[in-house]
């Protein structure tokens, strides 16, 4: 079947017609979804611990634990085990010192004086 109509008229009619299927409950479902999102956001914001504070404490705690392990290692009493027999421990400890160096407020005075030598050593890397 050929269309005798002017194509422009066909296109205009196609574009202007808004034949929309009924969507019962659209309004209620949308408002329910909004409330659900609001609830989820509230729950999330209640659970979130401020990131900078958390990251600083977590890093300091990690450094303290690793540094403690280094000090207690058998490579030498009271000496940081930076050149001990556990390469992973050396690498990790050095990394922690360098990370500490890069963060303001987390230095040897925070980590503990026992590891000052190791910290100084890492700074020279």
């Amino acid at each position, binding site marked *: 079947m050929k269309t005798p109509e002017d194509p422009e008229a066909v296109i205009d009619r196609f574009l202007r017609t808004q034949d929309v299927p009924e969507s019962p409950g659209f309004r209620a479902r*949308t408002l329910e979804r909004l409330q659900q999102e609001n609830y989820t956001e509230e729950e999330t914001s209640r659970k979130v611990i401020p990131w900078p504070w958390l990251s600083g404490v977590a890093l300091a705690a990690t450094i303290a634990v690793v540094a403690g392990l280094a000090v207690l290692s058998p490579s030498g009493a009271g000496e940081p085990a930076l050149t001990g027999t556990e390469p992973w421990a050396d690498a990790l400890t050095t990394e922690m010192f360098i990370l500490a160096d890069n963060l303001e407020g987390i230095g040897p005075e925070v980590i503990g004086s026992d590891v000052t030598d190791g910290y100084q050593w890492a700074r020279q890397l």
Partner: protein
Amino acid sequence: MTQATTAPGPAGPLFAAALIHPMMREIAATSTAEEPSDPDAALMTRVATGDESALGELIDRWEKPLRAFLYRSLGSWEDAEDLAQVTFIRLYRYAPKYEPSAKFSTFLFTIAQRLMLNERRRRSRKPSEATDPEDFSHLHGADDPARTQHEIEEALHRALLDVPDNQRTALLLHQQQGLSYAEIANALEASESAVKSWIYRARQHLRKALEDYR
């Protein structure tokens, strides 16, 4: 079952919103401190205070034009409904930043078209199911008597989905939703001449799709 509707098309003072994007602030060209007499703008003022019933009224007024626009843009009623819901939720979120200046429909469809573009980008990253050309074989063969008006509309619908996003959006906002060239230019961050050119090219593409039916 379908029901033909037309956009509410408020004709009162122009109100809009500066949000979503810095570009939207340009829409707020002629702000006024008076109480909005445009019903949509008045509802938005209430929505800005957290009044969900006002949002409900806006949904009632604009749901169908919005779903029609998104359907022509995405080709799926389900996706259109989902994105229409997200559009209204965004509308609620941005309502506190709403400032009087431009037509409410410009504001609404700017949100919708940005969400639609994101959706189309997301789809383009996922391989879509290939369509067998045989599925469209009924659209060819000019002498097939089974062709109906519905088929012509289907062909136009597919052709519209083929045109670039900016062309299709400009065409729909102008001819389906009745936005002016200037309003579309604001919504799409383009010049008015670019908008006119996009609309012309999109119509050309649709004309080509009709050639088999002449």
